[in-house]
């Protein structure tokens, strides 16, 4: 019987199927960070258990860690306690561990792919919804809760209901100046924030195939923002080229065998999906969000939908959202002043994002009115930035590079956007208070962020004049 890529990987990992119940799914690798794992380790201790397969678990702190002076102890005692707890747990249970300051530390969803710990054909989980990122390598990767983290620690399995399958095909090519982030925000705006709930998504089509690995990671990362259990892309030459030589990727003869196996990881030509959606990449503009969920997105030159465009049942929620953002229905955002710019996170904290940002700000100056936080997704990304001389370009334009971590994406460290301030963020969520209580988040790609950083306002990065008169 013909199968989708998802079916092939899922089916190969079924241990048992409980009658009229969930699937007991075997997990190849689990990542643990400091926020969603302590109660799981504690549960293990209470039951007197060891970690069942310690060699398949990798731990690293990323959410709480400061992006300055990581050499010094964390000042916030509660954050410090959580990071220390992960340290204790990783050491006590004998798990692979990349502590703060380790050359391999960074955001889990950046580090997993770049170290080759995440590989095609795997099942991967983490107590973190953006685990969908790793699907870009051709893996079944999804976020789980802490009880499920405990299940994996204890048995290397989770119970999951089998999701339905969806294929999103993006035909034609993205225009110059339109990034993977714009593609993702476009898809989510069309699908809505809950539109893929219950489904596992495979992305396909010319625009997806043409994405770099970094771009694919960005796209799959945001799958959860339309409710999908996960997102994935069939591995191809781009995937293999990206993985070759990575620390934990197979080497030598094993590499050749792996490639042969990975080449079979494609949906069969006649495989049936529960839902098929098709988009045309050539229409997509640089995107941004105007509301308080990632589905509330539009082309940068568009106007915010009016109340007439909104289903009457949804109007209360819609108005609440715009009130929080202090935007009006029908309004355009071009020319709006911006207070903060955040480049980073598991969505856009990779080398390609820094290249795009640096290329756009080269020879210009950061606007005095803007506070810019540039946070590499990992130390490896930081090393690449310096190796390519991007640090010099950025510093010449008035930017500084901070130390890696989740940072202002969810403001669990000191990187908080103050109440009422507008931040153009390359991160993944514009929920109320996500970047700090009262913070107003406009999600966008690295080019829109760069344009905002040097002009101090929302502006089409392809060079349209800002209302204040400045052009880039």
């Amino acid at each position, binding site marked *: 019987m013909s199968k989708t890529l998802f079916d092939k990987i899922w089916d190969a990992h079924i*241990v*048992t199927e409980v009658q*009229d*119940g*969930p699937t*007991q799914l*075997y997990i190849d690798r689990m990542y643990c960070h400091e926020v*969603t794992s*302590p*109660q799981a380790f*504690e*549960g293990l201790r209470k*039951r007197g258990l060891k970690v*069942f397969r310690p060699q398949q678990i990798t731990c690293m702190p990323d*959410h*709480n860690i400061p992006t300055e002076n990581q050499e010094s102890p964390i000042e916030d005692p*509660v954050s410090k*306690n*959580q990071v220390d707890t992960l340290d204790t747990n990783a050491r006590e249970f004998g798990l692979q561990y990349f502590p703060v300051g380790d050359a391999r530390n960074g955001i889990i969803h950046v580090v997993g792919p770049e170290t080759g710990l995440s590989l095609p054909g795997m099942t991967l989980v983490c107590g*973190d*919804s953006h685990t969908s990122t790793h699907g870009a390598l051709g893996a079944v990767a999804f*976020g*789980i*809760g*802490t*009880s*499920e983290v*405990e*299940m994996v620690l*204890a*048995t*290397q*399995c989770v*119970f*999951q*209901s089998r*999701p339905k399958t969806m294929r999103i095909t993006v035909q034609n090519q993205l225009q110059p100046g339109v990034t993977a982030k714009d593609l993702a925000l476009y898809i989510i705006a069309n699908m809505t*924030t*809950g539109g893929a*709930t*219950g489904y596992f998504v495979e992305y396909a089509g010319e625009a997806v195939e043409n994405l770099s690995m970094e771009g694919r990671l960005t796209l799959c990362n945001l799958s*959860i*923002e339309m*409710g999908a259990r996960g997102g994935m892309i069939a591995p191809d030459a781009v995937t293999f080229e990206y993985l070759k030589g990575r620390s934990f990727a197979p080497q030598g003869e094993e590499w050749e065998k792996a490639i042969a196996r990975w080449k079979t990881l494609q949906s069969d030509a006649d495989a049936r999906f529960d839902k098929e959606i098709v988009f045309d990449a050539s229409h997509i503009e640089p995107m941004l969000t105007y509301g308080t*969920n990632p589905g509330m997105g539009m082309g940068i030159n568009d106007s915010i939908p009016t109340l007439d465009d909104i289903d009457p*049942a*949804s109007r*209360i*929620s819609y108005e609440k959202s715009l009130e929080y953002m202090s935007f009006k229905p029908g309004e355009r955002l071009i020319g709006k002043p911006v207070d903060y710019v955040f480049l980073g996170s598991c969505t856009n904290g990779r080398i390609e994002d820094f290249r795009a940002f640096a290329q756009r700000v080269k020879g210009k100056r950061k606007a005095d009115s803007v506070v810019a936080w540039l946070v590499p997704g990992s130390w490896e990304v930081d090393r690449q930035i310096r190796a390519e001389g991007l640090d010099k370009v950025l510093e010449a334009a008035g930017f500084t590079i901070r130390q890696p971590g989740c940072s202002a994406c*969810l*403001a*669990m460290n000191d990187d908080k956007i103050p*109440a009422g301030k507008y931040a153009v963020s390359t991160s993944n*969520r514009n*929920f*109320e*208070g*996500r970047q700090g*209580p*009262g913070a107003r988040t406009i999600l966008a790609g690295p080019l829109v962020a760069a344009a905002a950083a040097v002009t101090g306002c929302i502006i089409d990065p392809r060079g349209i004049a800002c209302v204040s008169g400045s052009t880039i």
Partner: protein
Amino acid sequence: MKKFVTLTSTVVPLPIENVDTDQIIPARFLKATSKEGFGDNLFRDWRYDKHNQPVASFVLNNPAYKGEILVAGKNFGSGSSREHAAWALADYGFSVVVSSFFADIFKNNAMNNFVLPVVVSEAFLSGIFESVNRDRQTTLTIDLKAQRITNNATGQSEPFAINAYKKECFLNGFDDIDYLLSKKDTIEAYERSI
């Protein structure tokens, strides 16, 4: 472990759509290393203003509304996978959340903490909001064995879905880890087969 068979309770109405887990429990309260005490910060930034004073218009601050059942707009629990959202709801005293649609990860997390997510039709959901608007003492009855939810103000009732395995877990207070631990042989056999 807690067992769930039937529940009749007044409800707390929250007719907002797409309530994400960052609203249920904001990230800055995720730094604890135990599961207790999250109820104090449930809906923190809707419940308290920036001076930590209760926001009078928010439903949890209105003494007229109480009960073990939260009724929320569609797509409840979207966003972050933080199980802290389920811990906060349970700790505050909710045993059931009713909505027309739940986000996947939240649904699993809720069930793993014996908070029952009950999916109803859009029409049934708006019926509940209307009943509660008319009479704050409106009660709902959730009969897990019969898989039926009843709006006692109108007498309307609807079946709801839950898989047989999870239903048994709720009725008997079993958890998944106990079950999985009993399957170690099967897991090791699987590992040998790959």
